[in-house]
């Protein structure tokens, strides 16, 4: 197959000089907040082979974050674990399927999602531009912290092997996975797809579809805020976190993705710091990016190799 035109795209995203200082400050604030993890069995969702729990913990600004925690019933040994997140408009899935494959799995309802929206509820549409002119209160500041805290929750679980934690997700969940793998080196493997939150300022020029188009809506109504928006977004752009991702990572992208342009997936793979990285680009695919076809088996094999095989063990 000839090289797709999207491969030649060059992102305009640049990292702010105080990017690391900004996020170190957020992380310091986060670490000062007790995790206060809680779990309650959910008999309605549990099965003969999988235990399901409603989980919660405290994140930035003392927001309680809900989740679904699943584990294979009756596991005798320490378990590898996988962390995952919801997409922009979807709710977190109950990861029974991962538990059936032998993983402890946490699916985080980041702030704004059902069960985590009592203290923060920007709306959909709305999240993309929530306080977008102020990096200190932009909505994704809290979501990133919620994602990092998911790692802390898994590390708090005695049945989880801290040396075998992976991360996965599509779309917004892919972006959250990148920022988490970047700041939490305990993550041993990442499999992401159709990455959203990569190249915000590129994407709003490449596409006029939601959710990115929420930013265009905002700029149309408040053109005087363009400089402030362009100043805020690079702090939250996954392309600026990518260099710190060191774990093995695979990325799937659809060349006809109408939500997260394929161009930005190429920009991401170029910037990922990992020596072991691979992009699977699927022609004829949209935002599902091959997930409904052969890529599912590729992800299964990837995690089995890195989290269940000998090379993934601590």
């Amino acid at each position, binding site marked *: 197959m000839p090289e797709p035109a999207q491969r030649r795209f060059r992102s305009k995203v640049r990292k702010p000089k105080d990017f690391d200082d900004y996020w170190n400050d957020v992380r310091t604030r986060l670490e000062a907040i007790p995790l206060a993890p809680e779990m309650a069995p959910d008999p309605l969702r549990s099965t003969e082979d999988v235990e399901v729990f409603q989980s919660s913990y405290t994140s930035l600004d003392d927001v309680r974050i809900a989740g679904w925690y699943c584990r294979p019933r009756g596991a005798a040994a320490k378990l590898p674990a996988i962390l995952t997140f919801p997409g922009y*408009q979807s709710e977190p899935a109950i990861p029974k399927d991962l538990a059936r494959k032998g993983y402890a799995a946490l699916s985080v309802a980041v702030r704004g999602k059902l069960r985590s929206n009592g203290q923060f509820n920007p709306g959909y549409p709305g999240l993309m531009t929530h306080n977008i002119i102020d990096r200190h209160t932009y909505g994704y500041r809290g979501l990133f912290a919620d994602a990092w805290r998911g790692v802390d929750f898994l590390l708090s679980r005695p049945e989880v092997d801290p040396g075998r934690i992976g991360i996965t997700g599509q779309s917004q969940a892919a972006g959250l996975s990148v920022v988490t793998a970047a700041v939490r080196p305990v993550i041993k493997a990442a499999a992401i797809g159709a990455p959203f939150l990569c190249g915000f300022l590129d994407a709003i020029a490449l596409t006029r579809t*939601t959710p990115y188009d929420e930013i265009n809506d905002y700029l149309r109504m408040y053109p005087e805020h363009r400089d402030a928006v362009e100043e805020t977004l690079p702090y939250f752009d996954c392309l600026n976190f990518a260099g710190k991702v060191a774990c093995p990572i695979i990325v799937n992208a659809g060349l006809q993705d109408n939500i997260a342009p394929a161009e930005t997936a190429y920009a991401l793979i170029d910037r990922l710091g990992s020596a072991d990285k691979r992009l699977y680009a699927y022609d004829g695919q*949209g935002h599902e990016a091959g997930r409904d076809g052969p890529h599912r088996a590729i992800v299964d094999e990837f995690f089995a190799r890195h989290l269940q095989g000998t090379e993934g063990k601590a």
Partner: protein
Amino acid sequence: MMAGAPGDFGSYWQATLDALAAYPAAAQIEPIPLRTTAFATMYGVHLTSIGPYRIFAYLSIPTGKGPFPAIYYAPRYQSVMQPAPQGTASLQRSRYITLALAARGYRNADKPYAASFPGLLTEGIDSGGTYIFRGIAADCVRGLDFLLTRPELDPRRVVVAGNDMALITAALHPSATHAVATPELFHDTLARAAKTAAYPLEEINDYLRLYPERREAVGRTLSYFDLRAFAPRVRAATLIMAGAKGSALDARALSPVSDGLEGAVTVRESERSSYKDGLFAESWIAAQCGIGDVRSILPEAWAKAASP
């Protein structure tokens, strides 16, 4: 009437529609400047449905002289209803009136009742009188009632799009001229649930695992919502978006629905590609509505790929 449909199927739904008719829509319409463009004006709409319950919808009206065709987005199985499905080109709003309904429990219509996902599919499922989808179906009808009041609308080109609720709406409201339906919930639900561990049908399995004694009641409730029973009432020209060949809802599995439809029917089996399937659906709608240059209102990534 399909075999297995309850004998009071017709009276159940007529009673629902009669209850809905007892409430005025009491439409409150407010402009949303943030989502308004040079080519379309966005409004937020609040309506009363049965209960009584206030529901919400995003209404977009193209700039210019109508009348315009309309796409009515019935609620899908997710907590969020955006002004158009995620990934839809904003320029679609330049050619169609669009109305996207947040039914009871969905965001923007979640007070006093906030739906759970998972959870909605079994809410009140022990009885046809309490099942949440009776109210949601009424909400869908109410949304179409409202759309038909818009003077900008061409009533000969009214497309209702969505999952099962699109087909149910078209069955309950004869003013839908076209339907695009991707069934996922209400075709042979109990039998299909038994063969999967995937949500949303896993909600049914979860419920019956905890309450096995309620199986018969659940089955009876679901029979009021089975698409096979609605099919003979659908006179709209319909596009059925079936699952990929060999999947649980492929064209063959859905044939009892598609064969039963009263109006003209096109069945499209998924190519496991939201791009290819989406392009087909957008093109079908445009052709039905007399819009010749569909490429001009496609997402950029699709338009580029579809260029000769």
